[in-house]
């Protein structure tokens, strides 16, 4: 080439939406790989910072309104001699307290929460969570047998403890897993179901069970941990 290259000069750009170009010198004997997709970048200030400030203000305003409208609960002075019936833990432990109704304390208070924590910690290290495709994308017969065996085992196990609050969601989730075998009528929801992976099915099952136990423990348990309707609860939940 006869043309002499222009000397490089720094250029200051003041367009906040502008994407600076990176220049790389590549030696002819190397074969670098490149990402096909180039992502649009924006300046953190102001684009992200302004959103963070707005988010914080929304949280503060919402909480202030709630704090002005609703008083935090305060009952009488603690009295070790007068046990309220029922005595309940805070709402996020009421799922566990509900389990205490079905299982021996060591299972409800130690084994199950321990298993949940271990299961949460190993999620990113379990191969199934990293490579899983849609549930029915593999060997269909194997998947059928596995779901039937696993849900059957869980149903028998929890039925033995008469823990219907776990048995019913287990059956429902297993039914939904079989529903995901085909697209059916091809509606968006059915198509969405066929894409759900096994880890997502398991997590959904866990969330439904945990939420159901917490709701029952909070709103449907009265004196002696008996089942009551929320409108018959005294004191109200």
């Amino acid at each position, binding site marked *: 080439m006869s043309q002499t290259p222009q000397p490089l000069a720094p250029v200051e750009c*003041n*367009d906040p939406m502008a994407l600076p170009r990176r220049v790389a010198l*590549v030696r002819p004997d190397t074969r670098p790989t490149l990402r096909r997709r180039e992502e649009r970048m924006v300046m953190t200030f102001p684009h992200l910072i302004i959103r*963070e400030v707005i988010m914080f203000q929304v949280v503060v305003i919402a*909480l*202030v309104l709630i704090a002005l409208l609703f008083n935090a609960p305060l009952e009488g002075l*603690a009295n070790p001699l007068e046990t309220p019936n029922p*005595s*309940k833990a805070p709402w996020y432990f009421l799922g566990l307290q509900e389990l205490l109704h079905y299982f021996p304390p060591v299972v409800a208070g130690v084994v199950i929460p321990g298993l949940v924590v271990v299961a949460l910690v190993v999620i990113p290290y379990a191969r199934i969570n990293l490579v899983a495709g849609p549930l029915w994308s593999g060997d269909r017969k194997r998947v059928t047998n596995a779901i039937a065996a696993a849900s059957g085992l869980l149903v028998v196990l929890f039925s033995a403890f008469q823990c219907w609050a776990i048995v019913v969601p287990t059956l429902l989730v297993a039914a939904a897993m079989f529903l995901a075998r085909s697209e059916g009528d091809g509606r968006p929801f059915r198509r969405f179901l066929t894409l759900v992976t096994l880890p*997502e099915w398991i997590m959904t099952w866990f969330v439904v069970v945990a939420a159901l136990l917490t709701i029952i423990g909070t709103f449907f348990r009265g004196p002696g941990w008996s089942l009551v309707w929320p409108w018959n609860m005294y004191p109200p939940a």
Partner: protein
Amino acid sequence: MSTLSLASLTTRLRASAVYRSIIRHGAADTNRNRSLVIFENLFLHVHPVKVREKTLRFSHTYWLGGITLAACLILILTGILLMFYYHPSVPQAYRDMKELQFVVDNGVFYRNLHRWAAHLMVLGAMLHMLRVFYHRAYRPPRQFNWVVGVVLLLITLLLSYTGYLLPWDQLAFWGVSVGTNMAKEAPLIGKPLRFLLLGGNIVSENALLRFYVLHCVVLPAVMLLFLSVHIWRIRKDGGVQGPPEDGTDEEVEP
């Protein structure tokens, strides 16, 4: 003599030696100064100077981690205010609740704010964890940050639970009695652990003092430690990760 306006005042303020000694860069009207806003600020420099535009979308994270952090900041502020009026002793702790309610200016408001922000933080942390799971944002290189997140969720629950005892009313006393009776069932370590936590075999004044120290000193300190790692690693791992997309890992040779 130049006309006095807000703009000229601002310009003169920005040019002053004192202002320049605090904020070293000029107004954020050039991309260079917009960068300096971020990396010359202790509190903002956990951010990169530029972020991927799509991470700003609401559905990318639903802001759940941010909302949890916001609730955490509100809890620290209101918690410090409440500490000025609180004695961790029986029955003064309960009387302090009544003082907050009837005597202290805005006392009941700050107690309400602290209580509801605590619920928001627990709920926010749970929903944040679910969002990260369903977006598969725990995948490499973010595995360890997920584990740190699980630890933070447990610390959040412990913080909320230790705070639950402090009003020393019937709700607090029996709520904590129920929970600590469950801990007793753990084989071998259950009973000694409960004794250590309560400073005795029943929920008493000793338990109140221990829960107070855990709630106001130990757990917040551990929380801040893990929170720093959690937030720092978001940046180290390439920013917030939204829903999975097709073909992002597709690499080609030029």
